[in-house]
C-alpha cells in the first residue's frame, strides 16, 4: 500500500507547463529517486507534495496527491508540511538561530509547547539521526551558520527530522557538497529509510543507483519511466531513459 499517491499531477507557471500529468505511487519506508535533466520538473514535483507552490501566486497545480488515503490538498497546508519534511538543494539553516534552536525550529516556529527536557531529548535524537550529534554536541549554542556546508545540510536534515515526518523530500541534498560530505549524507539516507519514507531528487545517476529502491525518470515535465531501481539501471524500458543513463544527454 502506497503512503503517497500522485495522480495526474500537472503544474504550470503562467504559460509554462512544468509538470505534465505525472502519476506515481510512493512506497512506505523506501527511497524513491527522481532523476532527469535540469529543468525537467523534479523540484516542481517535490514542491507540490508539501504545497510550497502556494507561496508563489503564479503556480497552478492540478491533479491529486493522496497521503495515506487523504487528499493532501483538502488538508491544512501547515499541517501537511509538518508531516512532510523537506531538505533543500542549498543548505539553509536559520542564520539567526543557534544549532539547538535550528533543530527545534519546527516547534519554536509553530509555538508547539514542549518542556525543556523533552526538547533536549528531541534535539539530541534528531541530531543523532542526522549523524551530526558527535560533531556539535559541545557547541549547541553556537550559530548554525558556523558549520561546514556538509554539516549545515545535516543540520537541515535534523531540523526536518525533529518534527518526526512521515515523508522526507530531499531536493538534490548533496549537489552543493564535496564528495566526502555527499557520501556521509548518502549513508544517512540509507539509514533513515527504516523509519521514514524518502523522496530523493538527484542529478547523480550513481547516487540514485546506490541508495534508491525505486527510481522515476522525468524528461521535459513528463514521467518517462518509473519502477524498481534494480530494473531501471540494468534494463531501462524507455529509449530516453537509456540515453540519459548512458550520458547521451542531461
Amino acid at each position: 500500500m502506497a503512503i503517497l499517491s500522485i495522480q495526474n499531477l500537472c503544474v504550470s507557471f503562467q504559460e509554462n507547463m512544468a509538470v505534465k500529468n505525472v502519476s506515481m505511487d510512493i512506497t512506505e519506508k523506501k527511497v524513491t529517486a527522481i532523476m532527469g535533466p535540469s529543468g525537467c520538473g523534479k523540484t516542481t514535483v517535490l514542491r507540490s507534495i508539501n504545497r510550497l507552490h502556494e507561496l508563489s501566486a503564479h503556480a497552478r497545480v492540478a491533479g491529486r496527491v493522496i497521503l495515506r488515503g487523504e487528499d493532501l490538498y483538502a488538508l491544512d497546508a501547515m499541517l501537511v508540511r509538518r508531516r512532510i519534511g523537506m531538505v533543500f538543494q542549498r543548505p539553509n539553516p536559520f542564520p539567526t538561530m543557534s544549532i539547538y534552536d535550528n533543530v527545534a525550529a519546527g516547534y519554536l516556529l509553530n509555538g508547539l509547547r514542549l518542556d525543556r527536557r523533552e526538547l533536549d531529548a528531541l534535539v539530541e535524537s534528531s541530531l543523532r539521526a542526522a549523524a551530526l550529534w558527535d560533531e556539535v554536541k559541545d557547541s549547541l549554542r553556537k550559530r548554525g551558520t558556523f558549520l561546514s556546508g556538509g554539516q549545515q545540510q545535516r543540520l537541515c536534515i535534523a531540523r526536518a527530522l525533529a518534527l518526526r515526518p512521515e515523508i522526507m523530500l530531499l531536493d538534490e541534498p548533496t549537489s552543493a557538497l564535496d564528495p566526502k560530505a555527499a557520501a556521509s549524507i548518502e549513508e544517512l539516507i540509507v539509514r533513515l529509510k527504516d523509519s521514514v519514507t524518502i523522496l530523493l531528487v538527484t542529478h547523480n545517476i550513481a547516487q540514485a543507483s546506490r541508495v534508491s529502491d525505486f527510481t522515476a525518470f522525468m524528461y521535459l515535465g513528463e514521467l518517462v519511466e518509473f519502477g524498481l531501481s534494480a530494473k531501471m539501471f540494468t534494463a531501462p524500458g524507455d529509449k530516453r531513459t537509456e540515453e540519459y543513463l548512458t550520458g547521451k544527454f542531461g
Partner: protein
Amino acid sequence: MLWSLQSRENIFQRALYGSAFLVVAILILFFLTLLFKSFSAVWSNGWGFFTGVVWDPLAGVYGAFPLLLGTLLTSALSLLLSLPFALSIALFLGEFFRKGLFSAALRSSIELLAGIPSVVYGFWALFILVPLIRRLEILLGVVPLGVGVLAAVLVLAIMIIPYAAALSAEVIKLVPQDIREAAYSLGATRYEVIRRVIMPYARSGFFAGILLALGRALGETMAVTMVIGNATKMPSSLFDTGNTMASLIANELAEATDPLYVASLTQVGLLLFGVSALISLAGKYIVRKYSVEI
C-alpha cells in the same frame, strides 16, 4: 600599453583617495570652525550652558538645557509614534504585497511623501493640525494654544514615516527566500515566519532605518519652527510650547547682534552636531552587534 593601463589605474586610485580625504577634511574643518566660532561662549557660559534652564539673550544668560530636552523629546516621541505605522507599511511592501497595483501606489505615495519639502509639512500642520489640537485642548480644558510640543511631535512623526518605512521594506526584501521557504516547509504560518525568521534577520536593518529617521527628526528645522511655539523654556506638558536646537538657531541667528549671542547660538549648533554624531555612532555599534553573519 601595459604602462598606460597601470598609470590609468594609479590616477583612478588617487582620485578615490583624494575624494575620501576631502570628505574627512571637510568634517574636521566643519567641527573646528564651529568650535572656534563658539569659543568665547564656551568660555563664558561654562557648565551653565548644559544645565541652565534660562535662555535670555537680553540678560546675557544662555542655558541650553530646554533646547536639548526639546530636541530629544520631540525626536524620541515622534519616532515612537511613527514606528508602528512604518513597520506595518514595511511589512506590507516587503512581505505581503511586493507587486501589484496597490503596492505600486503605496510605494509611490511614500516616495512622494519623503520628497515634500518640510516647509510644506509645516504649512499643512499650521492650518490643519494646530486647529485640531486647539479643539482637543479646549475639550481637555488646557490653554488652547494649538502650537506646541504635541504639534511638533505629530508633524515630525508624519515626516519620518516614509523614511523608516521605505528603508525597512528594503531590509525585509533582503531576507533570503530560502530561509523563508525553510520556515514554511516546517509548517510555520506567515505570522510565525515574520515574527521568528524575518524580524530577527532584519533587526539590524530596521535599526538602521530608525536611526536614519531619528537623524532626520533631530535636525528637522522648518516644520518644527512653524508649530512648536518657539518658547525657550522647559515645557510643562505636551500641550505647552517649547523649542528645539535647530529651530532656535533658525529663528534667532538673524537678529543676534551681540558677539556672545552669536557665539552661544554657534555653541548650540555644536551641541546639535555632537548629539547627532553620538547617536549615529551608537547606532552603528548596535547595528554591527546585531547584524547577521552569513
